[in-house]
């Protein structure tokens, strides 16, 4: 397998087994260079395992992957040299100052001292942490630590950065702040970002492409727009008076209607492909329903995601985005 130019990651039938547990199941994926790619999935879906495999921290049981054109089994050190990572935990040395934390990783990447000092100053200033540079990190808030961990991940100007749930556990304000920082960073540094999250709002705002994984299997991949389009087969919300449960039950029997639910004068319908809403409205009017408004709603990434998970929107949802 040779990674064609323009791809940061290319996995081919990548499989990782831990004893009887299959954490990654024949994952085939191509991530173009220079974009923010979101890897979505519930807890235990295999997102972290995929990052570990891409970084060459674990060997796959079968299949293979190339990161920046390097084989994860044979050229893991080269991959780690050219990538940055913020893993499950910030991974900061809490007894050390922010500056010392970055200095250590700068030394590890053999960044010459003057360049290192300039880069540390640049990143700490960009993330609004420069004034606290000499504080031990242990005294910082979680949001500040996450920002510092992101700064560490991009310190050596990697071509590809892995961010494993970077906003997990942050309050809404810190989440928005970090999200904006990530977007600016990706744009300014021209770096490919591989981001795992179960915050769908975050993925929708940040990512040019997303992949959805469950039980180690890749269920879908594409732009958030294309995933939403799968679900845009026709969701219609009808504000009406005089809706009865009998009418809703009758509607569910229509061949063009996939699902129907009424709540507080709002009728939500999911239409099958190509179905027209006009006959439904006419039928409702015939049955003495006063139709006030008909709105074709656009599916969100969450709708598409839940669809892929085999859940409806009222089911046990994942993080719908806290900001």
């Amino acid at each position, binding site marked *: 397998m040779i990674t064609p130019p323009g791809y940061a990651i290319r996995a081919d039938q990548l499989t990782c087994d831990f004893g009887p547990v299959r954490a990654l199941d024949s994952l085939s994926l191509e991530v173009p260079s220079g974009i923010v790619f979101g890897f979505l999935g519930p807890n235990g879906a295999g997102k972290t395992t995929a990052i570990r495999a891409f970084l060459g921290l674990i060997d796959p049981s079968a299949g293979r992957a190339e990161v920046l054109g390097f084989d994860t089994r044979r050229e893991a050190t080269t991959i780690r040299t050219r990538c940055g990572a913020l893993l499950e935990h910030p991974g900061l040395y809490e007894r050390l100052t922010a500056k010392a934390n970055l200095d*250590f990783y700068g030394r*590890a990447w053999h960044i010459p001292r003057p360049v290192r000092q300039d880069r540390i100053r640049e990143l700490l200033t960009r993330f609004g942490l420069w004034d606290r540079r000499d504080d031990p990190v242990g005294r910082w808030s979680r949001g500040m630590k996450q920002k510092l961990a992101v700064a560490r991940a991009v310190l050596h100007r990697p071509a590809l950065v892995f961010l494993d749930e970077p906003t997990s556990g942050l309050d809404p304000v810190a989440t928005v702040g970090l999200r904006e920082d990530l977007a600016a960073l990706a744009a300014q540094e021209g770096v490919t970002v591989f981001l795992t999250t179960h915050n769908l709002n975050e993925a929708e705002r940040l990512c040019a492409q997303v992949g959805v994984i469950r039980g180690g299997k890749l269920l879908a991949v594409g732009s958030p727009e294309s995933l939403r389009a799968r679900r845009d087969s026709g969701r219609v919300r009808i504000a009406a008076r005089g809706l009865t449960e009998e009418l809703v039950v009758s509607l569910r029997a229509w061949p063009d209607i996939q699902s129907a639910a009424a709540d507080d004068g709002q009728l939500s319908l999911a239409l099958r492909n190509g179905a027209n809403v006009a006959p439904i409205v006419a039928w409702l009017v015939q049955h003495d329903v006063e139709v006030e408004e008909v709105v074709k709603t656009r599916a969100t990434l969450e709708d598409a995601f839940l669809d892929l998970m085999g859940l409806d929107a009222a089911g046990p949802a994942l993080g719908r985005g806290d900001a």
Partner: protein
Amino acid sequence: MIADIWTVTWKEWQEFRDQLLSLRRGGLSALILALILGVVAPVQLGPEWVHSRIVIAYWPFLAATMVSSLIADSVAGERERHTLETLLASRLSDSAILIGKIIAAVLYGVGFAVANMLIGLVAVNIAYRESAPILFAPQRFAVTIILTILASLLMAGIGVFISLRASTVKQAQQAFGIAIIVITMGPLLLFNALAPEMRESLVRRIADVGESRMETYAVGMLFVTSAIVIGAALARFKRGKLVLD
């Protein structure tokens, strides 16, 4: 590789320094220990503290004990504080990380022992002023330093194994405490378990060997043992295993 080892050693020292400079986080206990071992004991024992043969075992033991507490923090602590995986995701090699940590701990242990030796020497010379300065015999001093380094290396290697199996620093230190008791008391208990005539014969044979040759044997034995233990630790300290532990 050498630059990477030095980078890890530098980071470890930054963390040790922070602990030592903070009285509450270990600086006070180090200060008390230095006062007892470097001032009180030498002043009480006098010139015997300098000339006794026991120093050959005392300083290596002291350094190894210091190494044991640090290596547990350095290895098990990385896991406990969730910094290990990030470190493994860097470009640093497994061996550079481990050797850097071992060197940092050994430097600390040996440095602590040597500092106490020097403080003690000053204390003895002040308390027991003689016409000539009271000094360690050069050969014994050299052997003591070599044994101190080797004992520290051995303890660091054992510490890596113990720490890799422990999920917390506390757990590693407890296991270490038991290991130190077994290592120090074990031979003594074995000796006592021997029949009286065997014990006498063993003592006679050791006495016949002579001090200088005994020192050579001790150095050789510690060198081989520590090389084996550290080699095995290097083989065990692998990303693939560590990430999944």
